[in-house]
């Protein structure tokens, strides 16, 4: 049964567009595409809208050349490519929560060239370390809610917001519980499976997804993975949905026991603490969440968080996925390296583009794994 659940997560990812179209047909409700996890999905759920994350497909996105200069990261180009090819033609609108310039560009190109009924940009503060960020974001969210209400033609009430908050909190909480099983000496799920669970949650109705995760939680204690976990690895970086890479590395005698990705733990690590002021509570969650490096200054709080994760999940080494041209993440590689090294976790950075040259990477990852297991000392 556990295998079937994981298969379902995979199916949802592989057939995400079919799922969305059927959902729409079935519910007669609107779907919004979002680019960055700084979009408060709570408010969209409150408005009975399905939020789905726009991601790439890992095919060379030649169609974006006229719209985005090629020195912007592959996620932003590849995502736009999907839109231009009509893959997301079921979207009623798009929303972006301010993160990096790259995704802003995708949002704007989409707004200008791919017809949607609704396009909204939330100016999520960049300085999440200032005490003024939460009150400011609360106002931004009020403005966003108002704009949504005008679009859908009805008020989003407090009880709607409570429902939205509950839906999101429950899903994040459940997935976090699953993550606990990655701490075991013999983790009960692989890194690939964890990635597929989180990725699929960004693509389907959270209520449906949560039911399945709940079921997984019931059954997981009895699961025994028929594989040697090998080296315990951490994977760190920005957006990462490269499942083939995960699988290939885990086939080399390693298990990703934890990740620090916005398609992984960063997405689900903290919840909204409900309070009377619903929008304030939501704002607080997005200000206090594990930050994207683009918002993380002057202190390196994400680096500290990565160190904690590595310790908690007993990682022996970390692969750092640098999306080529991504400045915020690239900038943090040396401080991250230093911090992880100080707790005895070496890192190995790999530069990712739309497609990954696995042939070259394989040799390098193998060599890295050997340094972690001490094998190289034998020769």
């Amino acid at each position: 049964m556990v295998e079937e659940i994981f298969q379902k997560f995979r199916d949802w990812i592989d057939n995400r567009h079919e799922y969305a179209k059927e959902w729409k047909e079935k519910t007669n409700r609107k779907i919004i595409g979002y680019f960055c996890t700084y979009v408060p999905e709570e408010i969209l759920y409150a408005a009975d809208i399905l939020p789905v994350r726009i991601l790439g497909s890992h095919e060379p996105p030649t169609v974006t050349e006229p719209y985005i200069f090629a020195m912007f990261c592959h996620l932003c180009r590849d995502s736009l490519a999907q839109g231009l090819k009509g893959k997301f033609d079921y979207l009623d609108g798009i929303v972006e929560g301010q993160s990096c310039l790259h995704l802003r560009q995708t949002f704007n190109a989409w707004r200008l060239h791919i017809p949607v009924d609704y396009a909204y940009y939330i100016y999520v503060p960049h300085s999440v370390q200032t005490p003024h960020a939460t009150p400011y974001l609360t106002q931004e969210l009020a403005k966003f809610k108002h704009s949504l209400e005008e679009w859908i033609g009805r008020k989003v009430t407090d009880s709607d917001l409570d429902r939205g908050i509950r839906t999101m909190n429950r899903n994040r909480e459940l997935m976090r519980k699953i993550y606990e099983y990655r701490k075991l000496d013999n983790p009960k799920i692989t890194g690939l499976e964890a990635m597929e669970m989180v990725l699929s949650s960004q693509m389907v109705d959270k209520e449906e997804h949560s039911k399945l995760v709940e079921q997984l939680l019931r059954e997981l204690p009895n699961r025994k993975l028929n594989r040697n976990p090998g080296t315990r690895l951490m994977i760190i970086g920005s957006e990462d949905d490269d499942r083939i890479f995960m699988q290939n590395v885990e086939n080399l005698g390693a298990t990703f026991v934890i990740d620090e990705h916005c398609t992984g733990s960063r997405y689900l690590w903290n919840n909204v603490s409900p309070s009377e002021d619903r929008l304030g509570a939501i704002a607080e969650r997005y200000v206090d969440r594990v930050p994207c490096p683009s918002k993380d200054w002057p202190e390196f709080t994400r680096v500290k968080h990565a160190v904690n994760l590595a310790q908690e999940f007993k990682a022996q080494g970390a692969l750092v996925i640098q999306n080529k041209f991504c400045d915020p993440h690239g900038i943090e590689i040396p401080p991250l390296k230093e911090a992880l090294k100080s707790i005895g976790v070496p890192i190995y950075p790999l530069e990712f583009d739309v497609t990954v040259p696995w042939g070259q990477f394989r040799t390098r990852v193998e060599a890295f794994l050997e340094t972690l297991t001490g094998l190289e000392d034998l020769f």
Partner: protein
Amino acid sequence: MKKFPTEQLKCWNEAKNLRKSYYENYLNAHEKGGVRWAGGAWSFSSIPAGLGEDVYSLTGEPYGATIAFFKDFTAKCHEATEAAGFPRTLCAYMRNYWGSILLDKYILADGKVIDEHPAPDFIWQDHICCSHGKWYQVARWLEEKKGKKVPMYCVDVSVGYPMDKPLEEYKINYIFQQLNDGVEWLEKVTGREYDDKLLCEAVWNEINATRLWADICTLNQAVPAPLDEKSMYSLYVMGTLMKHRPECVAFYEKLKAEVEDRVRRGIAAVANERFRVITDTQPPWGFLRIFREMEKYGVVSLGSLYTYGLIGMWKYRPDGTWATKDLPPRKPQTREEALRMIVEWTVDRPEWAHFYLPEAKTKMILSIVKQWKVDAVLLHYNRGCEGLSVHIAENRHGLVEAGVPVFPFEGNMGDEREFDLPGTLARLTTFFESMGLKKLRE
């Protein structure tokens, strides 16, 4: 063919000296008991001015550009940052700046390299580009590794730019509150008492300097153009170094008078002017000779959205034309008034607008094209600066749709490895020829 009279700018040497002493003053600040701070050229530089008359800054972008101008030193800076593990695709100015810290060397305006990079006493930055806060966060981290703890304050200004209405009060407030806290922070980290009078002076200076620069750029609407882009780089830079200083205001007043006089007398920047272009962002600093090559075709570059809009402050008139932004009704009298005034003044910065909306940048360029009588636009697909090349492909669409000839070229403002000079010149020549221009006899 008609030749316009030309003349060397009279205040050229003054510009040179101001720039020279700027870098020296920062270096020697401690000898005079002064304070030094580092931060971006766009930061609210008038706020630290309240700490006293002996406060000296080092602004990062012009320093990165100065490094880029001296290719040997740039190459060393890049080697050092790459050896430290930073990807080579990052902002080129930022890498130049870090390289200087890593090498523990400081370069002066004339290219003289000094041992020991002078660490700032504090960092005062603002953030609109993804790299702004991160740049100084890492600079601080690098200083700390050398044993120097540098406190950092960074103001988030990424609140958006509505094209058709003023920015909402809560957004202005968000920035204002950060600045207000910043004043207390400055007092705390320097142990100095803050002088609101000096703040008011500095804010007023900044407003005047940035208005004057817009006036100077407006004078370039004249035919022949009194200034060309290459010379403008040596002039606009004052605004990137010390826009809040009285020297900057005085210099721009003098410059404005001189340029007015040039317009009156028909003095040209380029004697053979017969085709007018503008560019959009920073040039590849190591290759400014492309402008001289352009002159061989009688082409003058009148400046760029970057030179006009980074320092100049503008507004749209009701008829849609672009003009110098109006002076606020009176000089600020209190801290609150000064801080609010500088926020309201700065949120209209044209170079911020296009971070958000491609339409905003296209609209500004089109205004310049029309009012400055521009024949073609050169768009720098700048690999060194994601901030100013964001949306550039959209701007190209917008300009082409409006019937403006566009020459896109790829390069890097601070990393010469990413600029193909012969290739760019060959393509540029073809472009000019397609515009009906022929090389003039040298």
